[in-house]
């Protein structure tokens, strides 16, 4: 069984600042992927970034990067130069075919 835990129900950040969202997971699989999805009020789930568990190098997508600590089963998301459009619910997920999601972190970006 897999579990994903996001311990921060809500976070806020000032525009242009940096924020880190936390995620821990537990899995019995040896080959798995980790994901961060963003869900704005429109309900549309949008992939932000993906990390292959077998890769040690942390994934980066423009202003978004992850800190993947495999031994600690930790997968945090860093958003640099935060923008108003980054405000959304962020979900961490792990798995392959069937994804297991955390309960989400609501990010507010203050102008």
């Amino acid at each position, binding site marked *: 069984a897999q579990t994903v835990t996001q311990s921060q129900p809500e976070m806020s950040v000032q525009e242009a600042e940096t924020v880190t969202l936390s995620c821990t997971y537990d899995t019995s699989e040896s080959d798995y992927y980790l994901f961060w999805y963003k869900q704005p009020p429109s309900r549309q789930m949008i992939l932000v970034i993906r990390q292959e568990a077998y890769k040690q190098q942390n994934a980066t997508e423009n202003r978004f990067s992850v800190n993947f600590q495999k031994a600690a089963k930790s997968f945090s998301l860093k958003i640099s130069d935060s923008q108003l459009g980054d405000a959304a619910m962020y979900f961490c997920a792990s798995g392959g075919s*069937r994804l297991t999601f955390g309960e989400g972190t609501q990010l507010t970006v203050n102008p």
Partner: protein
Amino acid sequence: GAGVSQSPSNKVTEKGKDVELRCDPISGHTALYWYRQSLGQGLEFLIYFQGNSAPDKSGLPSDRFSAERTGGSVSTLTIQRTQQEDSAVYLCASSWATGHNEQFFGPGTRLTVL
């Protein structure tokens, strides 16, 4: 190209009635998934289809829930004898294949059971 589409966008029904939710995946995607998102919570896996293989139904919460995928494309999630606890947003996703490919999500159907 077109993304994943779902219909209806919203559905209000009375307790005990049956409902059908539809998902049109991205053309060419062989894998299709259904998730349920209750208010203020994360997504809960329900079922996935991969090509002609038998679907993984391990996430369906009860035998009132069923899903089919006709012709390897459109999928319908059916909930029989709806209960108030079935109220949630039902999200569909598709991908090129199962495994670790990115899942592309539809906008969801918000189901309200009165």
